[in-house]
């Protein structure tokens, strides 16, 4: 019987080792790690459900997926955290995915599934129902106190970028996201708005490209991340019995998440480069930093895991790069090599 158990476990372990090879397969690009960044602050958020909502003056603002009306204010030196409860003037809507975004002196409370946008002042924390966008949306970012940009879909169900203003204006641009395979899974990615540079940046999840657009959704340019995956390595399967599209194979994640600030683009990449140490890869996440103005690669840095959890959200402000790792919010000081590329000094 011990023989059977060993054989059974052995077969599964062999399958696992064979699949691991794919992940650690080296790619043909090189990273620059000239300057090491140091972690300067850290704070325990007490909950694993926080996300970055924005910042204003001395505070970072965080929203909470488990408690959608909670807004946490943390000072930028991560010493103190205060959790506020927001008030909104309508609770009757079919909320399913509530998020908050900050655009000082205001904040937005949005739900892309309804869809609806509330706005309130950071001073009072009371949000009033403002407008109903004409499409459902996700990946929302605040461009200014009147406008939010997001990812939505066209009539064919394919993902596109758009924005809505509080005065009821809505606009889309179908030519920003470019379909390679199916138009939904393959164009997945992360959206940010660089308030200093006044540009929208969308970084594709499955390919080495990012899109720079103007606030009116006109295309500025397209840049490339340093890895070599130009075509999304995903397989989409259509399950007729469920009338659903699903991934048909484990997808190759290239650029997991990103954030843009003051002319810099920070991208958390999932691909190991040619000369990197695999052991570090198991203990940290890598961030590649780009200069948006000339679409060039500056350098890379490691953000170490905490209690075996990898970083899952990024935000930059001042001279610091903030990351949420599990329950913890950390701050890394950016070195001059990186900050000298800032658009607004």
């Amino acid at each position, binding site marked *: 019987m011990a023989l*059977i158990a060993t054989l059974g476990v052995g077969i599964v372990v062999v399958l696992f080792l064979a699949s691991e090879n794919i992940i650690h397969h080296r790619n043909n690009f090189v990273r620059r790690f000239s300057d090491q960044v140091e972690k300067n602050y850290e704070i325990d958020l007490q909950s694993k459900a926080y996300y970055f909502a924005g910042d204003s003056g001395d505070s970072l603002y965080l929203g909470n997926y488990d408690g959608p009306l909670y807004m946490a204010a943390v000072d930028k030196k991560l010493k103190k955290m205060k959790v506020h409860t927001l008030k909104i003037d309508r609770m009757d809507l079919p909320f399913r995915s509530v998020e908050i975004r900050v655009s000082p002196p205001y904040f937005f409370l949005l739900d892309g599934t309804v869809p609806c946008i509330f706005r309130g002042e950071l001073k009072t924390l009371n949000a009033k129902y403002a407008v109903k966008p004409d499409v459902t949306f996700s990946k929302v970012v605040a461009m200014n106190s009147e406008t939010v940009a997001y990812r939505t879909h066209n009539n064919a169900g394919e993902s596109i970028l758009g924005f809505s203003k509080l005065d009821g204006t809505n606009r889309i641009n179908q030519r920003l996201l470019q379909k390679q395979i199916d138009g939904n899974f393959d164009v997945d990615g992360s959206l940010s708005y660089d308030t200093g540079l006044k540009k929208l940046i969308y970084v594709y999840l499955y390919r080495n490209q990012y899109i720079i657009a103007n606030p009116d959704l006109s295309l500025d340019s397209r840049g490339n991340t340093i890895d070599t995956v130009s075509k999304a390595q995903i397989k989409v399967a259509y399950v007729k019995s469920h009338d659903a599209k699903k991934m048909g194979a484990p997808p190759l994640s290239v650029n997991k998440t990103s954030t843009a600030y003051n002319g810099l683009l920070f991208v958390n990449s999932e691909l190991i480069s040619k000369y990197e140490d695999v052991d570090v890869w198991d203990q940290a996440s890598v961030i590649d930093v780009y200069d948006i103005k000339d679409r060039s690669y500056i350098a890379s840095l490691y953000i170490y895991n905490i209690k075996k959890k990898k970083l899952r959200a990024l935000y930059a402000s001042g001279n610091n790069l903030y990351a949420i790792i599990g329950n913890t919010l950390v701050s890394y000081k950016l070195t001059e090599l990186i900050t000298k590329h800032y658009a607004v000094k």
Partner: protein
Amino acid sequence: MRTKWKNMKISISHKNTIIYIICLLSIVLFLYAAVSKILDYENFQVQLAQSPLLSAFAGYVAWGVPAVEILISILLFSERWRKIGLFAAFGLMVMFTAYIYIILNFSAFVPCSCGGVLEKMTWNQHLIFNIVFIVLSGTAALLQSINCQNELS
């Protein structure tokens, strides 16, 4: 000598009851799992294709697993092949459990493709459920072996 023989007879029938019950539970489990996979076959196959470990073999595993589950149920049902069925059930549950453990601890992507109510459990509940069946089938397999040995002697 006589009382010893009587005691042995009673304990054998206890053992048999335990074995019968475990076989019954296992047959119900495997048939339920196999049928729910077959009824949702297309979806089951796609879910397997999403698994980092099994993606390359999704086609084979998709019909292979329900076939093995049904085969084991038949073995358990028959008197003659019951022992083989119990060892096979034990082996299969060990493999399923090893798979869950590895996917949970070493993989970024966690798909599910167990069928029916099993899908609704949390991963930890599923792990415990599997370990219970490993113990049950293992116990029954051992008992059945002892029975066979006793019958021979």
